[in-house]
């Protein structure tokens, strides 16, 4: 295990110490000391947005705390959901009197802990609504879409719900915008190699020197097929075909695209992938709005890429373009 760290047991806390020290907009808070909140605090009179998830995906989840995005974020151990106390902290610290949207990925531990936390806090008078990202098309068939896990596309929901909250919408409608975004987002990823969980004996999985895995999840969950690496254009072709087959596109065929690096893939390659995707989307009559290329949702040292598409209508396009101010997403 070749990682720059002090010890696997202090990994998450050491990361958070650096994250907060480097970003004056972040404060580490809560009884658990496992919540990042905006330095400016909860906004009175506006809906709060709390998220959370396991460590090892930076800039997700915590990196998107900021104006026009998240209010707070609970952080779990590497690849584990945030624990109960941190979920309670994240919700309480996001509350500005208008309720809190819980917006996170569809994973077992995260769901259970946020559910327990919100049950306990509803007793204290904090209203919550929950919306789960389920964008990973490789993780369940379309007829079981509710079982799909949330991956890179989650940040589109952050952006749109964050903008809606900022604009003063109430809890139900912020939740509705988030839900609409989730339903209009599809992602598929592919991995070239494994990541290593700090303290584990080795990589999460083995993969041959000339192989990739299509559809792999962000913790190394098995994908759709494993086989020889192909030219970028062919890979993009397949990924777009799978995504577009079920993307609920509106008139005008406006889409936003996120070409996301899993952590160890050079930016160069992400741009090659984007160029291939754009060529194909242009040729099929889609209009690309606000493309994003970079490392937005990672799996530590995993190499690979995911492509997310968000089908836009005027409403979503409006919120997507609204100002946002977090260290990793500024508009």
């Amino acid at each position, binding site marked *: 295990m070749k990682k720059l760290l002090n010890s696997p047991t202090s990994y998450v806390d050491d990361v958070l110490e650096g994250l907060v020290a480097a970003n004056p907009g972040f404060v580490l808070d809560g009884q*658990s000391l496992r919540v990042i909140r905006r330095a400016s605090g909860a906004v009175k009179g506006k809906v709060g947005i709390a998220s959370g998830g*396991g460590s090892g995906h930076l800039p997700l989840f915590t990196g998107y705390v900021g104006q026009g995005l998240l209010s707070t974020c609970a952080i*779990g*151990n*590497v*690849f*584990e*959901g*945030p*624990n*109960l*106390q*941190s*979920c309670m902290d994240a919700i309480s610290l996001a509350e500005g009197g208008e309720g809190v949207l819980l917006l996170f990925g569809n*994973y*077992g*531990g*995260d769901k*259970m*802990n946020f*559910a*327990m936390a919100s049950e306990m806090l509803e007793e204290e008078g904090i209203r919550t609504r929950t919306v789960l990202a389920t964008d990973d098309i490789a*993780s*369940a*068939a379309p007829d*079981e879409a509710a*079982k799909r*896990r949330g991956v890179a596309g989650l940040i589109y929901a952050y952006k749109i719900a964050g903008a809606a909250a900022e604009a003063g919408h109430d809890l139900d409608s912020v939740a509705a915008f988030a839900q609409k975004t989730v339903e209009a987002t599809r992602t598929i990823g592919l991995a070239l190699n494994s990541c290593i*969980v700090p*303290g*584990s*004996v080795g990589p*999460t*999985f083995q993969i041959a020197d000339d192989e990739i895995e299509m559809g792999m*999840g962000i*913790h*190394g*969950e*098995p994908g759709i097929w494993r086989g020889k690496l192909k030219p970028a254009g062919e890979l993009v072709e397949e990924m777009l075909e799978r995504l577009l087959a079920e993307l609920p596109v509106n008139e005008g065929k406006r889409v936003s695209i996120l070409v996301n690096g899993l952590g160890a893939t050079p930016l160069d390659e992400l741009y090659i992938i984007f160029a291939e995707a754009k060529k194909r989307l242009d040729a099929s009559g889609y209009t690309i709005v606000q493309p994003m290329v970079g490392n937005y949702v990672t799996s530590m040292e995993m190499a690979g890429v995911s492509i997310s598409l968000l089908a836009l209508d005027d409403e979503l396009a409006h919120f997507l373009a609204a100002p946002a101010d977090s260290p990793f997403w500024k508009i």
Partner: protein
Amino acid sequence: MDMNQTHLKGALDRIIADLPAIEQELNAADAKLGDGDTGGMFARVIGAMHAAEVPSNSDLGATLSAYARATAAATGSSLGTLIATAMLTIAKQTKGRMEIEWSELGPLLEQARDAMSARGGATLGDKTVLDALDAVARAIKGLSDPATVHSAAQAAAVATLEDFRNRPNKIGRARMFAEASIGHDDPGMLAVVRVIQAIGR
């Protein structure tokens, strides 16, 4: 002798003795269909329970409640959260009691099972930790001799593991790979087997 705090602590010690092997085995099982972290998480949870300061003459409810809190603080993973849920459920039922009869264990496990099902949304047959727990709870129902309880529990857990091996996972990370999950042990179920085996040593 009825079941008391000493039994719980002794069980924990014996699990810890087996922990390195269990950790590796669970990680490997989870890596086949999930994210490969069941063992690491389990080791951390057991370590946290062991480190929890529980006064040595606490009642069963207080002891389990301390263990549950330690577990919840140590992880937010699916299985960890379900373990905490189970312990909290049994803690509520045994609050103030220094000991329980061995025959009470089965019904208590059934209550835990139901709480876990409610929390996690899985049902029996999904090939999860629930199915193992359910089999154990049913197998030890009415038994009052600790050795018999243990051997019945172990037999039931192992049989369930084997019984489910060739069935598909229906929940959690492993679920979508119905085909691929056939032939593999569910890590949560495997954890139940290994824990019971460890306690019996």
